[in-house]
């Protein structure tokens, strides 16, 4: 076994490769470093293949499918706690309760009594320039807008945590901004403009409403957990309510308010045009209706079969999830997720539907998994990934 043989094939970049590879595997690499690594490995196809095998093996986290060890340790521990704090742990049932899945959804089920914060999620976007130049900008001009952004140089959108002046906590997803005026919290107003995707943990204050401006849609928080998806390239603004009450209205027709019940989502169509157009009346209240320029539909939220995860909020758990969605929409999601540019060259591919979820996969692994379902071709050209059919 002579390690030098290997060193020679990899050449003088060997150490740099190991360094970059480690950072990549541990999610510590920057975008530039990932590109550099790809470049280095491109010249060493044989080594790249071996490295691929080892990393794919090591990336699989050890799966602790059985919890025998935890169960045993917990029984012992709870016995100790009952001795130490008999008044608090007298009820042995706490030790016997079946283990519930760790899921975001289940956290929202507990009693509302004593809630000191409100949790909700907003995904919103519009072009930043549009907001800045727009006459009907939701925030009055003059005051200085304060803008908080997420780092977006990471392979996966990072959930950067920011704290607003009122103590509200915000987790920003990749490529996302939130802004507010410096009079935030004064004049009985808490208003934010959000571009991209975020999770809010709002400090409760019944006297000062919290309003999120999302493109042409306003969301008024009334003690609630909800998700809004409104990327600029999307045709709809989707609001999914997990718990509590949320009031959704369109800027075009502010008097028309939709009050959602828990586990419901509302989809309102928006286009760049009708954001400025006043709504004409003519309302129908069925599950899918036209309301002036806005077409809307109300649906039930469904967790993925066999899990507690609701696809609409899967991003909070670092999951990219899609359920029978056309490839064109999945590609949109993957572009945001991986910060990559992906093009579909063949229209036949666009309507192919896939169901699945990605967690730790690299862009290439994710594409390969899709490829396994339907054999399309992948080509990388100048950092643009192209999907096509031979």
């Amino acid at each position: 076994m002579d390690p030098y043989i290997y060193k020679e094939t990899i050449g003088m970049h060997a150490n740099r490769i190991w360094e970059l590879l480690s950072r990549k595997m541990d999610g510590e690499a920057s975008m530039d470093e990932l590109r550099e690594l790809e470049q280095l490995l491109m010249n060493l196809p044989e080594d790249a293949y071996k490295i691929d095998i080892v990393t794919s093996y090591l990336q699989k986290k050890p799966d602790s499918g059985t919890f025998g060890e935890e169960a045993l340790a917990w029984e012992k521990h709870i016995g100790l706690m009952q001795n130490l704090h008999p008044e608090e742990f007298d009820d042995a049932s706490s030790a016997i309760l079946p283990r519930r899945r760790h899921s975001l959804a289940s956290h929202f089920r507990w009693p509302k009594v004593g809630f000191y914060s409100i949790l909700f999620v907003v995904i919103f976007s519009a072009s930043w320039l549009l907001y800045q130049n727009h006459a009907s900008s939701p925030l009055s001009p003059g005051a200085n807008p304060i803008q908080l952004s997420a780092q977006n140089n990471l392979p996966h959108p990072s959930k950067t945590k920011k704290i607003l002046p009122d103590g509200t906590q915000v987790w920003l997803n990749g490529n996302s901004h939130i802004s507010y005026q410096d009079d935030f919290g004064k004049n009985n107003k808490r208003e934010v403009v959000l571009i991209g995707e975020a999770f809010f943990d709002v400090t409760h204050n019944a006297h000062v409403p919290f309003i999120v401006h999302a493109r042409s849609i306003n969301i008024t928080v009334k003690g609630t957990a909800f998700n809004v998806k409104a990327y600029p390239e999307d045709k709809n603004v989707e609001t999914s309510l997990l718990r509590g009450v949320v009031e959704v209205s369109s800027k075009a027709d502010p008097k028309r308010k939709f009050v959602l019940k828990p586990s419901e989502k509302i989809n309102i169509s928006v286009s760049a045009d009708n954001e400025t157009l006043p709504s004409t009346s003519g309302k129908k209240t069925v599950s899918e209706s036209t309301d002036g320029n806005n077409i809307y539909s109300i649906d039930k939220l469904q967790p993925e079969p066999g899990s507690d995860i609701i696809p609409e909020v899967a991003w909070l758990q670092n999951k990219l999830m899609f359920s029978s969605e056309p490839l064109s929409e999945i590609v949109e999601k993957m572009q945001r997720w991986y910060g990559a540019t992906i093009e579909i060259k063949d229209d036949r591919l666009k309507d192919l539907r896939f169901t699945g979820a990605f967690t730790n996969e690299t862009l290439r692994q994710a594409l390969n998994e899709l490829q396994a379902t339907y054999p399309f071709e992948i080509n990388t050209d100048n950092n643009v990934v192209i999907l096509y059919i031979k």
Partner: protein
Amino acid sequence: MIDQIQLQLLLERIAVFGDHDAYKRLFWAFYKDLNRFAYSFVKSNEVAEEIVSDVFVNLWKNRMRLLEIENLKVYLYVAVKNLSIRHSTRNNRDHLISLDDLAVDIPSTSAYASPEELCISAELAAAIHTAIQNLPPRCKIIYKLIREDGLRYKEVADILHISVKTIDAQMTIATKKICQSINFVLK
């Protein structure tokens, strides 16, 4: 691996409501990793188990102040480390614990995806594992905390009181050794 937001929610439930269910989930989520971490210091399963249990006793006792903790993961690992070192030095005051003396336990091959799933040979999987097992102790504890427990470089730096640069260098060594170990098995 438990998500940062879920962790924060559990923490709030314990701190604000004294929620037993959240307490239990936290215990379940961290028990195995913390137990292995303690073991690498004290080299006894029994003692490691007691140490983790003690850390959770203290966590409950001080739950009112939990929200002051910046990073719960780091807090738990540091608490386990401190108790482990205290235990090891109880009988021998001058005995200093070095990262080079740790006995790090890495799960066996069966804990990973089966080789068949990835279309690699069992020999290859075994070679990778031998390479991991043979990493020097300092490298191995860092490798374990990052690759197995899923901690960030910065978090491990805070736990072990070493620099992120050292971690970067040690992970580079680990990756290099592991990749090189299979060079001669693969055709």
